[in-house]
């Protein structure tokens, strides 16, 4: 965090506080108020876009913990999200639990499921672990497709959440569930990475042998990273299922998992703000293609709408390549440079 000049921490509590000054509290509360009013003042499409964005942030935040902080590359995040979505659907539709109970439960269930997927990380790492997590994706999808309880290929329909008779059946209403959940989980992640656990994750990422020599229990912390990451994915899956009103295995493909990794690379590995940067940039790029395609088709009729509309995947690939070559530390690194230069202003950074 950027510490304003002249601000001193006089107590341990102040030193540990995320929000340090009254001004920041005012800004935070103002931002929360504005966010709360968004569904009332902005168009429906933007609300739905923000819902999508927030769910993706939760999901990629989980990936950031296991991959960005703990260094365990995982391509299983889409599959874990599927587990969250299906478990939420089963909890609410088959077991009759309330959405409010199912939300944390689906996270915990997915976390436990993730321990199985994370087990190979105890013996393998890097590229090999990445391949193992791809296997987890396919095994999970196969299970979903062939188990009776998951509705097999037809998926499970989900009812919208309710609270004291109030039904959250529109994007505007779901916004008041999704956005606070996202903020809460971001706060949780922000705190986690500066605790003993977070430091252990970073130590394992930087050099697992050295970490073990220092007394860090690799078995425990690697699995803990997977559990937490999958908890985030499970919560994201639960929210997604209740937003789309259906859990269906074809919503969670390996391509999605690649996109999530791409978001992490673009935003910056090992950074909480990086998650926001990556998700926002890629999602906006995706929406931008939707806007640009008809314009391109009008300017260059020989292209037709179809090839122009297909630019989305190409654009994603180009952006990813751009960041890998020119800014492998992602937008978060640029953000840090910007903050440093502002702090030193008017002196050159």
């Amino acid at each position, binding site marked *: 965090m950027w510490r304003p000049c002249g601000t001193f921490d006089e107590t341990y509590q102040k030193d540990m506080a995320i929000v340090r000054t009254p001004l920041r509290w005012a800004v935070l509360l103002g931002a929360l108020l504005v966010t709360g009013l968004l569904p009332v003042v902005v*168009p*429906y*499409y*933007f609300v*739905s*876009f923000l819902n*999508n964005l927030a769910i993706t942030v939760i999901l990629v935040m989980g990936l950031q913990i296991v991959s960005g902080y703990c260094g365990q590359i995982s391509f299983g995040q889409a599959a874990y999200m599927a587990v969250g979505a299906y478990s939420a659907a089963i909890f609410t539709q088959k077991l009759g639990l309330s959405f409010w109970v199912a939300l944390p439960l689906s996270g915990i269930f997915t976390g436990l499921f993730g321990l199985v997927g994370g087990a190979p990380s105890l013996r393998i790492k890097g590229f090999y672990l990445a391949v193992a997590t791809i296997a987890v994706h396919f095994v999970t999808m196969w299970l979903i*497709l062939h188990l009776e309880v998951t509705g097999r*290929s*037809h*998926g499970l*329909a*989900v009812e919208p959440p309710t609270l004291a008779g109030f039904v959250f059946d529109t*994007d505007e209403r779901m916004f008041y569930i999704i956005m606070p959940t996202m903020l809460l989980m971001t706060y949780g992640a922000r705190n986690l990475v500066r605790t003993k656990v977070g430091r252990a994750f970073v130590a394992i990422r930087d050099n697992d042998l050295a970490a073990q020599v220092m007394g860090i229990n690799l078995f425990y912390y690697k699995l803990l990273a997977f559990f937490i990451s999958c908890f985030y994915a499970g919560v994201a899956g639960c929210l997604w299922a209740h937003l*789309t*009103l*259906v859990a*269906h295995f*074809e*919503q969670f*493909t390996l*391509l*999605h998992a690649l996109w999530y990794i791409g978001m992490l690379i673009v935003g910056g590995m090992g950074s909480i703000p990086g998650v926001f940067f990556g998700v*926002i*940039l890629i999602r*906006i790029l*995706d*929406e*931008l*293609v*939707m*806007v640009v*395609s*008809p314009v391109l*088709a009008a300017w260059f009729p020989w292209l*037709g*709408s*179809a*090839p122009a*509309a*297909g*630019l*989305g*995947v190409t654009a994603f690939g180009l952006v990813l390549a751009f960041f890998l070559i020119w800014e492998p530390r992602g937008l978060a690194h*640029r*953000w840090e*440079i*910007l903050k440093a*230069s*502002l702090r030193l202003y008017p002196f*050159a*950074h």
Partner: protein
Amino acid sequence: MGSRKSILFFLAVLLAVGWATLPGQASAREVVFLDLTDFTGPVAGLALPGSLGLEDYIKDINARGGVQGVKVRYIGVDTRYDVARMLSSFKRYRRDEAVLGINIVSTPFGKVLKEITAKEKLVITIPGDGEYQANVGNFFTWGPTYQDAFAAAMDWVVADWKKQGKSGKPVVGHLAWDSPYGREPLRGGKEHGEKIGVQFLNPEFFPSGTPKHDVYLSRLEAAGANYIYVACVDPAPTNVLRDAAAMGLNKKIQFITDYWGPTALGVGTHPEAVEGAVVVSFFLRGEEAKNHPINRRIWSTYQKDPPEKMNETYGMGIVWGMTFEAALKDAIQRVGADKLTREVLYESYQRLSGMKREGITGPCAYSPSSRRGSQEVKFYRCTKGKIVPITDWVKTPDAVSLHKW
């Protein structure tokens, strides 16, 4: 400072993009047909040419002055077989009242939109899932449902079996993508087949993108299949047929593919591999499609390529456009252009029963109780690099009603 400027510039671009992504409104005398389709991904082989046909036909409508003076705007979005992407695209236009109809291409999109739009009278056209006929709502299939076509294919199998003078029951294997689409033909189609004396083997399913299909084919061969029904989207069926030919199975087993089997382009490229395979289709295939005057005129006007390069699903896209045009015309005649709403168009779609579409497909079967785009299919055979018809239009059995939904 350079980095600060670049970040500020980046933020400015983000804001501009945010503003630009606000959905635009169509003009008063213009309606929108939204095509949420997969220009990339596993079903692009059928979606891309189909959407080209739709877009070109809409251009043609506008070149003719629109429908009763109302212009139609085509908006195509590449949904990449990605539900999140489709949902985002759908919501972008959901409350734009100019959007009167939506076309979607893949089964998972239907699963989601079915739940979300359950209370809306918004016309959504979709390939062939029987559940939309079983639970009549706002989803309209392009042609006969998948199970109806499968049932028609089983009728053909039994007739072919008898024609060859064989006794006993024909043994049929089902080889399809491991997805709801791959399973859909069996939901009612199997019941029909068993009723008419077909013996079914355990179905074989494989993930889309599978490079080789030998193991599935071997199992079906070992189980004694006389016929194998293939349900996946080209080029996958062509690949299945290629593997079968390499194993010599095409000499002893009759392969039948569904609507998305080999097109004339695939047949021309791999004539030996697909030789003898039968295609069941609700729209014209092969030379019939390329020589059809409407297909030919639209293709040559807007694609400016020789007809040999036309993929037959292009004609299917033209049919989507014709159907929308007819419904729009009916709606305008009933309420006037100024009072066009989604609900009015929804009513009009249900009034299209019997509408002819120049013979590119069978007569329209939409009605208050039917969501079938048509009830006729035609059988073709891949022969010496061509797709030639072996039957006239055949009425499909009602297989949907045989299944317990």
